[in-house]
């Protein structure tokens, strides 16, 4: 039997799912005593090059309240051509197309290795992708120029049949008509006025006036082929127009009083964009819900109001990018990255997704945390207790990419007095409908099952199946989610209490003896994660602007587990002449004079030259042939950083600094302050750099944790 680590990894590879617990406590009461809720990290569209989509539609359970999709966990009667739903136990007839199935002739969705299957839906018209640019014009000229270039670049990356639209805004909002010859036209809206979608559509002339039907004239082919086509046009048709338009974009001309910021009408611009798209969808007879995804690229030294706008991206699954200027590689490359393509030449993006979660009877779904919005679909598997966005079994994810990740939280509802038979398994099915970037409608179905275990008799099993990384991220998401609505200290206290309770539950210790405290391997890293989480910008708003906090939290709520962990606990590599680069403790003791450090916090890549290295560099040794190895040493972290930069979205801020440099603060603020001005001489080691802070160090934190965990008082 593979270790749990391997099991977890395998599951993640295959299904994009990691659970906090891989063996589930079989009763509600026990589950609550586990402290960390039963939950999973789900990456719905995890890239699966090895998973070609099947070209037919899924088979659904016929029970109206269930409609689960046929999966490997279902029991199948090949002779009777029946299958039993593993969620509701409804027996279903296979559709005629499955007439030929047998034990040896199984459809993919019944094979155990296809716990995740992707179906392509053939029905229905495929609507083209729509990209609506909403561009701020309250910019400095060079900034605007850079933005212009980026936008034009992006145009060249779009598929030619994609529809594009352009809205610009400053004090006013302009919706540009793209199909006109000669004079360029745009519709302008007052930036201070909130209009309803209907009003907007009226004003854009999108609603057709009620034309009385001429009896003599049978319905003519629509006189305006598609009205909205004035604003949304296939890019191949209006490439030139749009390029010209962008070329002539002017800065917002309205005077800005000294000391004031230009008035921007971002909200109205968005509102109008939505109105415009809504209209399009109506025309296209698409589903009622709007699958608009809003990306925000905010680049300014100023506050841009991301805090206020965050829900636009957070709820629609859009991207949020924050930079100092559009004229930076951070923005330019990030923006370019948006349009990167997968191995099939398709954009790594998907639209208008809905995620549906189905559970077996012992479980209910309590909520989700991620770039989604509730669709408010009640059902038998919806828990009354909410964790994150709950009260529903379906969520809308307007835009997502292969890395978009949600935290899904469950509640075990099985009563203690209704034991689950030995070997019983609980099952969960994730059904994700979405529009693929090739414009296909697809459904990805992932069905997973885990063993139940009695927490009293089989605690060891449960303990061993704990995924502390996933648990840390899931708890962190809960914490960040709480932080949106609660006071920071309350959230910290809650996190601390959870940690202490967990330690009390799973630690091995003698009461009132902190030194006796031990945690098993599967829990050993968890407290450290919590330590760094407490210090992270997701929970600490001090020193961060509201916009920055929003930005950080936005990304934390949508990145996959690995990235999330990096965010919680940055990675530190050390480069020296003593050997190959090695990961080192995120600790002030790692800051040594003869080392080069590379820190990845997800948002920043920091290269830090130790004191000696920096002196050597200043002396120019790297340029001397005889010190070529020094040159290589200097180059190594740069290369590694490049690698990270290439893979990372959004582009991290790249910081190159050295001992004593002002930007060294990026590093110093992250490392565990094991050496501070307080204990500089008390601590045994003379190496490392003291951090001038009153923050507690990991050691102090752990000491306290142990003390509290063993204390019977709490």
């Amino acid at each position, binding site marked *: 039997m593979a270790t749990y680590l391997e099991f977890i990894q395998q599951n993640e590879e295959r299904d994009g799912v990691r659970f906090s617990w891989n063996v589930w406590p079989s009763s509600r009461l026990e589950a609550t005593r586990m402290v960390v809720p039963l939950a999973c990290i789900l990456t719905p569209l995890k890239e699966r090059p090895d998973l070609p989509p099947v070209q037919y539609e899924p088979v659904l359970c016929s029970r109206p309240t269930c409609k689960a999709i046929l999966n490997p966990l279902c029991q199948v009667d090949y002779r009777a051509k029946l299958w039993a739903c593993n969620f509701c136990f409804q027996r279903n007839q296979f559709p005629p197309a499955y007439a030929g199935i047998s034990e040896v002739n199984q459809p993919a969705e019944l094979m155990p290795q296809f716990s995740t299957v992707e179906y392509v839906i053939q029905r229905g018209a495929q609507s083209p992708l729509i990209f609506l640019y909403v561009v701020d014009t309250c910019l400095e000229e060079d900034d605007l120029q850079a933005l212009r270039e980026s936008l034009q670049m992006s145009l060249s990356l779009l598929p030619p049949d994609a529809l594009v639209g352009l809205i610009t805004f400053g004090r*006013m909002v*302009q919706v540009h*008509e793209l199909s006109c010859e*000669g*004079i*360029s*036209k*745009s*519709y*302008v*809206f*007052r930036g201070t*006025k909130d*209009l309803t979608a209907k009003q907007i559509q*009226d*004003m*854009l*002339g999108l609603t057709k006036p009620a034309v009385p039907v001429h009896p003599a004239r049978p319905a003519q082919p629509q006189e305006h082929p598609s009205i909205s086509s004035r604003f949304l046009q296939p890019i191949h048709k209006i490439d030139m127009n749009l390029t*010209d338009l962008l070329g*002539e974009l*002017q800065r917002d*001309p*309205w*005077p800005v009083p000294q000391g004031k910021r230009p008035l921007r009408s971002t909200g109205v611009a968005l509102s109008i964009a939505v109105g415009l798209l809504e209209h399009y969808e109506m025309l296209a007879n698409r589903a009622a819900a709007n699958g608009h995804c809003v990306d925000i690229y905010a680049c300014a030294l100023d506050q841009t109001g991301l805090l206020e706008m965050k829900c636009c991206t957070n709820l629609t699954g859009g991207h949020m990018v924050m930079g100092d200027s559009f004229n930076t590689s951070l923005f330019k490359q990030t923006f370019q990255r948006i349009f990167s393509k997968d191995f099939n030449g398709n954009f790594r993006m998907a639209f208008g997704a809905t995620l549906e979660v189905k559970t077996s009877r012992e479980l209910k779904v309590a909520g989700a945390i991620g770039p989604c919005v509730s669709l408010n679909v009640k059902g038998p598997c919806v828990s009354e207790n909410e964790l994150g966005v709950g009260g529903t079994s379906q969520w809308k994810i307007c835009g997502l990419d292969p890395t978009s990740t949600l935290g899904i939280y469950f509640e075990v509802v099985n009563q203690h007095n209704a034991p689950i038979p030995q070997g019983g398994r609980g099952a969960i099915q994730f059904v994700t409908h979405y529009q693929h970037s090739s414009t296909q409608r697809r459904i990805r179905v992932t069905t997973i099952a885990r063993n139940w275990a009695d927490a009293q008799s089989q605690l060891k099993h449960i303990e061993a199946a704990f995924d502390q990384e996933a648990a840390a991220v899931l708890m962190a998401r809960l914490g960040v989610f709480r932080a949106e609505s609660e006071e920071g200290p309350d959230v910290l206290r809650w996190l601390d209490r959870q940690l202490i309770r967990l330690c009390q539950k799973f630690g091995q210790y003698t009461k009132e003896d902190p030194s006796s405290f031990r945690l098993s391997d599967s829990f050993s890293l968890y407290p450290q994660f919590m330590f760094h989480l407490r210090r992270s910008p997701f929970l600490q708003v001090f020193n961060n602007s509201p916009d920055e906090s929003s930005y950080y939290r936005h990304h934390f709520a949508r990145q996959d587990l690995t990235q999330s962990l990096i965010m919680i606990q940055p990675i530190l590599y050390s480069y020296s002449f003593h050997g190959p680069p090695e990961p080192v403790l995120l600790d002030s003791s790692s800051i040594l004079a003869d080392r080069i450090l590379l820190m990845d916090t997800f948002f920043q890549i920091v290269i830090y030259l130790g004191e000696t290295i920096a002196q050597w560099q200043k002396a120019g040794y790297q340029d001397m042939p005889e010190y070529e190895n020094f040159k290589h040493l200097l180059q190594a972290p740069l290369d590694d950083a490049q690698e990270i930069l290439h893979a990372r979205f959004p582009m991290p801020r790249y910081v190159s600094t050295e001992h004593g440099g002002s930007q060294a603060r990026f590093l110093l603020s992250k490392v565990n302050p094991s050496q501070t001005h307080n204990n500089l001489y008390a601590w045994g080691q003379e190496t490392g750099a003291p951090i001038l802070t009153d923050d507690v160090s990991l050691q102090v934190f752990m000491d306290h944790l142990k003390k509290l965990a063993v204390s019977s008082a709490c």
Partner: protein
Amino acid sequence: MNLNQSAPPVPPFGQPQPAYLGHHQSSYGGQPGSTTAPTSYGAYNGPVPGYQQTPPPGVSRAPPSSGAPPASTAQGPCGQTAYGQFGQGDVQNGPSSTVQMQRLPGYQPFGSAILAPVVSQPAVLQPYGPPPTSAQVTAQLAGMQISGAVAPASPPSGLGYGPPTSLASASGSFPNSGLYGSYPQGQAPPLGQPQGHPGAQPPQRSVPLQASSFTPPASGGPRMPSMTGPLLPGQSFGGPPVSQPNHVSSPAPQVLPAGTQMTGPPGPPPPPMHSSQQPGYQLQQNGSYGPTRGPQSNYGSPYPGAAAFGSQPGPPQPLPPKRLDPDAIPSPIQVIEDDRNNRGSEPFVTGVRGQVPPLVTTDFLVKDQGNASPRYIRCTSYNIPCTSDMAKQAQVPLAAVIKPLARLPPEEASPYVVDHGESGPLRCNRCKAYMCPFMQFVEGGRRFQCCFCSCINDVPPQYFQHLDHTGKRVDAYDRPELSLGSYEFLATVDYCKNNKFPSPPAFIFMIDVSYNAIRSGLVRLLCEELKSLLDFLPREGGAEESAVRVGFVTYNKVLHFYNVKSSLAQPQMMVVSDVGDMFVPLLDGFLVNVNESQAVITSLLDQIPEMFADTRETETVFAPVIQAGMEALKAAECAGKLFLFHTSLPIAEAPGKLKNRDDRKLINTDKEKTLFQPQTGAYQTLAKECVAQGCCVDLFLFPNQYVDVATLSVVPQLTGGSVYKYACFQVENDQERFLSDLRRDVQKVVGFDAVMRVRTSTGIRAVDFFGAFYMSNTTDVELAGLDGDKTVTVEFRHDDRLNEESGALLQCALLYTSCAGQRRLRIHNLALNCCTQLADLYRNCETDTLINYMAKFAYRGVLNSPVKTVRDTLITQCAQILACYRKNCASPSSAGQLILPECMKLLPVYLNCVLKSDVLQPGAEVTTDDRAYVRQLVTSMDVAETNVFFYPRLLPLTKSPIENTTEPPAVRASEERLSNGDIYLLENGLNLFLWVGASVQQGVVQSLFGVSSFSQITSGLSVLPVLDNLLSKKVRGLIDSLRAQRSRYMKLIVVKQEDKLETLFKHFLVEDKSLSGGASYVDFLCHMHKEIRQLLS
């Protein structure tokens, strides 16, 4: 008619002669020693009577003066003679009418001088003044009534028409009392006079008579007419003379003579002129020296009149028994011609207080010597009653018609700009009046006393100057503000909005591109024109290029703004659909310098017609368009003007949306006023905002149907803008008119963001204002824009006693932003006399100005009162004015006589024109929009415009020799004056007709229309073919020059006699009874007389 009855016809007849003689004699006697003069008058009276009823007063005055100081009278005549001469000269050139006119002017001056004495000798005077007038009128009336009794007598003598016409014309007075008498008088006077006085007279008459009688039949007729035009009255005489002699009782003739006396002097020179025509004239003139000349001229006029008769005979003949003779009643043509002749040649020097300027119809130069030119300010009276009691008694409105930015002829310098430096213009500390020539410097020049409020102010050190021995500053003549009536001050920053010097103004062109506008070709035409027109934006002084920036908007249900920034390769259109909450979508690139953005603008104007060529949008908005323009100016922080080109009733869902509420059934009901009121208050609110921003709106309307001009014109009206209306616009027919108006409107110099304040010396104050502007308080006239065509009429009332010695002062101060963006103050000062005698008031009135005021008053009245009430009020006021004169100034005479003050003898005819104008008495073909349009047009008209608007000019084209290049003398606006063998032009400032008589010579038709016969002339033609012959050139030249005189292009309409269009044309023959029920001049005069009589009794 009743009047007639009252007066025993027979007795008058019998008596008349004696009366005449007596009168004449007495009057003469009373007057100057010169008997000749009187006689001549008598002669005049005959012809002139109607006109010169006014003269009587003058005469009466004259007599006294003359009586007392014969010398003076003699002098007077001399002076007059000068005028007279001119007049005569004119007369000769033109028809005789001028002669009569001349007399009048002459009178007034004299009269005023002499007045005092006159009063003392009422008896004597009466004969002169009243008698003639009364005689004339009575004669007419008599003629009418008499028809029964008298008819028999007259017919024989005067060819039927002869008697009545002559009588009528002769008699200013009504027949009532001495209908018959009057008759005789009118006629008799001539006879008697001639006899009594100079032998010359008789000859004249005889000549005319013969001529007249002969002429009708003879071909010579035409020539006569030209002569007669002016003479008309005379004609009547001519006719009647024979019969009249018998009737003539009276003094009436004498009165006329008086008038003539005045003019007499001029006589001599003219004679030579006349000579060519009729030797007889000359002789007469010669015969009558100084004094006689006057009379002669009169004679002359009568005679010509006779000639006219000749021409008219046709129509008049049948009528004679029933009607008064139109020739006998005061003729506007005559008055105008006389004034032209008498006062057109010498500059009007403004130095003397209280001078009555020449009529607006007279071409004259002005020399500013301390009072504002009449081009800037005209008053209803230049002599103001000292007390409000007097003013109330007279009922003569005291009003000034002010045109602060009036254009001046090139010979007259525009106002000097004075810069008082940082401290700004020097003003009175208390009343804030500006430094002007009337300020009194005292204490050696260290202080000055305000001429308005008497406050003593210190003279700032930098402004100090010593006084000369007369108490005048030594530098008075170096400083415009101390020596001129009109000048400008440079304003300091204190006079600017927000304490910031203004930026140059902007013009925004806002073009309706809905279906109608596109289909009619308007948009294409307009865009094409704008391309070149933009090079002619107003510029100041010698500026290289205009400082005015331009912007463009098109609209239908939504608005399209254009970015025409010079850096763009193509213009950009920005659509604003949120018409409910209008805003300006762009700033930079909307208002641009024409030269810099030339290419982009041209491209835009090329594309606009194309872009909307296929539009199917028929709905439009209106208020949001104005709002948008105003907001754009606000955003650009400048004042400016919007040029709106609009086609239809704004029914699209938006603020200011209108309903079609045109309802002709409301006419003549109490609700009629609603047709003139705006439908919604939204436009007033909008206008207020516009005014605050200095946003003037000019509206060009191109309606195919009702557009509710009353509502749409609210904003233009309140912002000092103009409205132009082109009903059923079609490019082929209306393009010239529209383009011409547009060019003028765009090019004209205009001031922005103006505030006008009229200050007066203690005793009177400005209480009411009429015109295109907005007022947020009771004293400041706020004008978002003001151009050289806009007039503000201001009414004054007493609030204290005035002083004869110090007179009354007006100071009109206009603070405005010039089209180059300079803030300035334009000051106009005017000093008026004050009087304690009503006669002085009546002698210094100006009827044209009075009519301007009364029309505006009435046109405003229809907003709040039933039209009938308004009409009655006008009539009553007019009657009161005339009755007061009759009661207090005219010499006692029979109640049956209508006696009009010389200065106001045209009041009835003009007032009648106002009363029957489209606004106050609409014909069936006049639309609600037309009425509203005219109503608001008149509101800002100046005196010259109202004059011709209400009494159109009718010019015979084929009567004078082709070689004669001067403008032909006008004839009276009556069908009777049209001869079917001639062609006439009629214009009223808005319309221009070419009427072609049915029996016009073929040659004329050929040379004018290029077709061989009358029947081939296209009715309704709007352009005359360009033909290379004298007549064609002359007529086209004349049309061009008429158009050049008017602020709006008059579209020509060719009307053929007996054609359908003739109805339209006849509408403008204002002396006739109108189809809509408007009274004929004669009838109205009778009515007026009745009213007066009622007041007197």
